[in-house]
């Protein structure tokens, strides 16, 4: 224990800086990626004016957001209103703390890592609720209520599926989970039909539920702009809005990373022979694959209605996740 603490505290500041850079660069990169990906899917060019192929567009937007007036309307609950973006941002920031970027990355080696990640990601909901409530705006309130209902519901299937992974890996440490999937892509939980086929189904459930967890289409009800104007961040502007924005993209990457760690071997290479490519590249490569998938889905599907959203969760995903847990356990016990 002391050994772990020593290494943890030794590594923590470095990790924090690295993660701060990752989160910020990720937002710039993801926004640009989303613009370009959506543009290509929609027969457009996307940003083309600033820099070659519009590469500076997101930087300019970031500067614009920083310089914008921070409007706090009358009748707003100021302390909550000001605090909310930081909570949301902090929570999505903290998930990266336990993500193992590479083999032996010690900051991440928390023995209840995955539990921490799930717990801290639930914290985002508190921030969103604070934002929605304090805004003194009915649209924000609707957005916040939807967000809470959605996040709380979809945490159930996610937790159940994660539990199944933990059961098979035999550890709650994200590093251990990665290590347990060593040896090539056929050993990854999400693809290993021969090890435990139920985890493959679990992978699918996790991916669908994670879309809801980060408010992405088709589950983007809390900020459905065509219904709720801007959802919980309707009243925010300038830097505070930028924080919500930043955390949204950080969350997209975070669930991608969690999915990678849980089901696609984390930093493990595709094949042991490809081990010369550094672990972080594998992790980020796979995680951005998920981000791309999220964008692809967003550009393809319309949005669900609130009752349909609940239907998908409680009547489809939760029973299926239960099945994964029980049958996956039985398989592990009898065959695995």
């Amino acid at each position, binding site marked *: 224990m002391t050994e772990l603490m020593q290494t943890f505290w030794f590594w923590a500041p470095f990790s924090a800086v690295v993660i701060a850079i990752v989160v910020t660069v990720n937002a710039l990169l993801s926004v640009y990626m989303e613009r370009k990906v959506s543009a290509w899917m929609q027969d457009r060019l996307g940003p083309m004016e600033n820099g070659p192929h519009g590469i500076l567009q997101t930087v300019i937007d970031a500067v614009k957001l920083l310089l914008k007036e921070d409007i706090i309307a009358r009748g707003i609950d100021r302390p909550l209103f000001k605090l909310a973006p930081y909570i949301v941002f902090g929570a999505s920031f903290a998930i990266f703390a336990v993500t193992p970027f590479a083999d032996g990355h010690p900051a991440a080696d928390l023995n209840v890592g995955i539990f921490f990640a799930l717990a801290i990601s639930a914290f985002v909901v508190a921030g969103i609720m604070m934002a929605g409530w304090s805004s003194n705006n009915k649209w924000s309130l609707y957005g916040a209520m939807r967000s809470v209902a959605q996040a709380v519901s979809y945490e159930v299937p996610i937790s159940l599926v994660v539990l199944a992974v933990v059961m098979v890996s035999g550890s709650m440490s994200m590093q251990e989970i990665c290590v347990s999937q060593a040896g090539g892509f056929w050993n990854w939980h999400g693809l290993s039909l021969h090890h435990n086929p139920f985890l493959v189904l679990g992978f699918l459930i996790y991916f669908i539920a994670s879309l809801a967890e980060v408010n992405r289409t088709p589950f983007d009800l809390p900020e459905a*702009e065509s219904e709720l104007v801007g959802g919980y961040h309707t009243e925010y502007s300038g830097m505070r809005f930028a924080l919500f924005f930043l955390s949204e993209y950080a969350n997209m990457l975070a669930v991608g990373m969690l999915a990678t760690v849980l089901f696609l071997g984390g930093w493990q290479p595709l094949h042991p022979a490809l081990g010369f490519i550094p672990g972080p590249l594998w992790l980020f490569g796979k995680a951005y694959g998920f981000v791309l998938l999220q964008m692809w889905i967003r550009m393809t599907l319309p949005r669900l*209605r609130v*009752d349909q959203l609940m239907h998908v969760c409680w009547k489809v995903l939760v029973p299926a996740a239960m099945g994964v847990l029980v049958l996956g356990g039985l398989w592990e016990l009898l065959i695995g």
Partner: protein
Amino acid sequence: MDNHELFIQGSRVPDRGPDGDLMTLNMGPQHPSTHGVLRLELLTDGEEVASIRPHIGYLHRCFEKHCEKLTPPQIVPYTDRMDYLASMNNNLGFAVACERMLGLQVPEKVEYLRVVVAELNRIASHLVAIGTCGLDLGALTPYFFCFRDREMILDFFEEICGARLLYNYIWVGGLSHDFPEGMDDKILRFCDYFEARIDNELNPLLSFNKIFIGRNAGIGVVSAEQAWAFGLSGPSLRGSGVAFDLRRDDPYSIYDRFQWKVCVGEGLVGQLGDSWDRYWVKVLEMKESLSIIRQALAARPKDGDVREAVPGRVKLPVGELYCRTETPRGELGYYIVSGGGNLPERVKVRAPAFSNLCIIDEISRGALISDVVAILGSLDIVLGEIDR
């Protein structure tokens, strides 16, 4: 009484809910899904809508008052600005009304070209309706595809008359310009291209998307009786299964010469007369319009002056006329009273979207806020025409 008090008073919703525990939610005039400056006052119980009180008039310019000071040829550009998504059809309606009063026979060529541009504009207008209907439900990509194809039509119009949105193309007795050289071929090529786009792109991506169907099927159901009683027309009426199209049932221009089908909703995925049916009718109608365009281009006379029959001075005879034509949104009626002078005494416009919108309270009760957005999208309103 100051303005603020008046605003509050004007917005007071009669308590029609089961108890006093309802919340008023102000949707618009600045809201992404009200398709312009429409304000809906929703009385909500959680996400459920107890009643809707629409407030219109934000774009009111008193078009009808302007008309009292203008001669009919001067009124034509004003009609552009009512339903700005289907200006050709508005021009056509007014021209037909004036020509009926004057007893004017327009040349064959003009009639055919009018049909071509009116049907092209119908497709362009339906593309906006379909695209925004998807956009309101969060489907981003079909919207861009629809607008990409609409751009092509606007390019044609630009080539024909120089304007992309407000054309002033169909004059009383004629047209402002002839088609340029090679226009027929371009339009025919577009027809082939676009027909394939509907089948291969729009339908799989949006029309038969499971989520899109789930959001629209069984929502905002209008029965045929309700549709007639509330004065619905156009795709909103046909979505309820009523095969009634003024182009066929109250013919004007030369629509009786073409072979085409009046498309109606059939309750294919949900209930007859739901939002999806109203949407689907528009998709089907675009194909019928393509067919009409092809027939008209094949049959049209090549020679002749399109301004040949344009009267030097339009002096409407004494009398009154109610003339209706089918625009993309439905029955556009012009009620013209003339005292025999240069200026009409009264021009009243029966705007299709105006009548289509008035049913929204009736069919939205008990729906969710998200459904109101879907219903509004399927009713396909243009505020420029509602407010005039």
